[in-house]
């Protein structure tokens, strides 16, 4: 974030690094918002086909959680977590190409939206089957444990997915083996049209953690600073052998379940209430307290995200569609050593 000015009065190198880190998170959160807004627009323009699930309103969660991750960690995002891809360093152009089904998309046009993972950046491409990625994250954590690696696995899931049996099996085993896995619940109060009270008889998904022998934390998912703090603390503890944890982030979905959904089943008041808790202005307020010239920072960052998003769109639009016969490629990995496994067949 060397090109962002409007920084507060100079301080020691440690504080400086922290300030830079914090500003970068602001940039990331803004980039996610800008990218997703553009995705919604492209969907309306029929340039992105298939299901599009906006994470607007929930950006602080992926930003804050991923800020505590390191190279070699493993992340399984949920269907709304486009931000995870940006946070973990996936090239925005390739991400956009993925959404458009283009050749340089993460899945080379094979799958849609976020199902194309990018293991080079630690991102597992989850299937659509909600909750099914939790056992997989547990398996990644098992590898870290077997190999005595100081890495963690993170699985994001919605409060809706929390009702799936796979989630139970995953959490239970994680507890038994004290695996280095963090389960992050994005509780946005709705699973498609189904409100919280029809999904579970309790208030906090986090309460389940204790039934598996580890700790559940509740945090405001719209407060980036709070998410960052808990992520650093909890993920750090897990990384140091403290066993699994669950972090529940309370939040709200701004848009419909997907771009097809007008979400008529929701209370307008509730939406308004949650929009007033938008993570971006809230974090700007914090930056201001930190002494930044926020208006200036925002202008610079808006310009930068605009450019990044436009470049991504340009890249993706200019990218070719895959050749039809490629439909039959990438089904089976060739016989090769494990080192080559992530290479193409």
């Amino acid at each position: 974030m060397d090109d962002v000015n409007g920084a507060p009065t100079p301080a020691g190198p440690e504080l400086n690094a922290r300030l830079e880190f914090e500003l970068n998170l602001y940039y990331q959160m803004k980039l996610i918002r800008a990218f997703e807004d553009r995705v919604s627009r492209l969907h309306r323009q029929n340039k992105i086909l298939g299901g599009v699930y906006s994470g607007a309103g929930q950006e602080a969660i992926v930003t804050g959680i991923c800020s505590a991750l390191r190279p070699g960690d493993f992340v399984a995002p949920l269907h709304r977590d486009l931000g995870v891809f940006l946070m973990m360093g996936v090239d925005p152009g390739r991400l956009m190409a993925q959404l458009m089904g283009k050749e340089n998309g993460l899945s080379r046009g094979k799958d849609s939206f976020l199902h194309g993972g990018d293991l080079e950046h630690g991102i597992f491409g989850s299937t659509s089957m909600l909750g099914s990625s939790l056992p997989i994250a547990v398996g990644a954590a098992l590898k870290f444990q077997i190999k005595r690696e100081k890495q963690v696995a993170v699985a994001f899931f919605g409060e809706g997915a929390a009702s799936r049996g796979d989630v139970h099996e995953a959490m239970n085993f994680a507890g038994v083996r004290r695996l280095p896995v963090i389960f992050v619940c994005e509780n946005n109060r709705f699973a498609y049209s189904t409100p919280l009270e029809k999904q579970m008889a309790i208030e906090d998904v986090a309460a389940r953690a204790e039934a598996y022998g580890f700790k559940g934390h509740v945090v405001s998912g719209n407060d980036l600073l709070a998410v960052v703090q808990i992520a650093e603390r909890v993920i750090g503890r897990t990384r140091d052998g403290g066993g699994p944890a669950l972090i529940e982030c309370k939040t709200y979905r701004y848009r419909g379940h997907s771009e097809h959904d007008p979400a008529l089943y929701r209370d307008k008041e509730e939406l308004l209430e949650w929009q007033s808790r938008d993570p971006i202005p809230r974090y700007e307020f914090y930056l201001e307290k930190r002494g930044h010239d926020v208006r200036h920072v925002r202008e610079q960052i808006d310009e930068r995200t605009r450019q990044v998003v436009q470049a991504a769109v340009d890249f993706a639009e200019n990218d070719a569609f895959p050749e039809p016969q490629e439909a039959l490629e990438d089904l089976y990995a060739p016989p090769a050593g494990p080192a080559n496994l992530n290479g193409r067949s």
Partner: protein
Amino acid sequence: MEVTYLAAINQALHEEMRRDENVFVMGEDVAELGGAFKVTEGLLEAFGEDRVIDTPISEALIVGAGVGAAVLGMRPVVEMQFSDFISCAFDQIVNSAATLRYRHGGRAACPLVIRAPSGAGIHGALFHSQNPEAWFTRVPGLKVVAPATAYDAKGLLKAAIRDNNPVVYFEHKRLYRSVREDLPEGEFVVPIGVAELRQEGRDLSVITYGGTVHQVLDAARILDKEDKVSVEVLDLRTLLPLDREAILATARKTGKVLVVHEDRLTGGIGGEIAALIAEHAFDALDAPVRRLAALDTHTAFSPPLEEYILPNTNKIVEALRSLAAY
């Protein structure tokens, strides 16, 4: 009045719930939302929360609870939001439901309908395009249906609800709004287990079902017009039990059979049908039984890939011409 395939399903639900108060509907977002595709629209208003039940995202529970209610005499119609997620309820279907009567020595029944919106061709990619029918057609104790028309969609759903056995009902998403017809005013059901001859023909037979029926009919028209080849078209409608008589009859009549389905080639039910014909109509065959199906891969997302993978009218025309020339 013209009714879409989707509206026909909705009508069947309304009528059956009115007719029998033991019928109820359960699934994700089926109540207030009326289902992801609006198939259950209006049911909540008409029948109330006791009989139109939103569930958490718990496919095994949805089917399992259906089984539990069914053995006590209810007639649950449960929904998988997409048939792709039926894999999450697999055990409950193939074990709990399918073996229920058998393991109770014939002293129990499981009148359960599992509705599953299936099929590709809508840019649904790997997990919103599946055609899982052949996982179930190999399971005794189940019945499996896959209507292609609004009439059949309605009539087969009504028959499924009245059937005393677990029925997996595949409704093709691409047909929801693209297929429509006038439906008779009065009450009707379409019997499970009976295929329908959509078109009589002399030269070739096509055996198909579900999403590819209309493509086959289009192809048959093209062959009729451009090649003067007369194609018989059999729509299976029910996939378990198969209508063996109808299958063998058309094979014996024309001696040349093409089986077409949107499901993948390998392990799709085309193999079973071809095997039946090859065994039981061997002497009548003038050509090998051919199959046209989706390629042996997952349903990819990018349009050129999806197009390449799936059957369509052109590919069917080509296959028919090649078979006609055999």
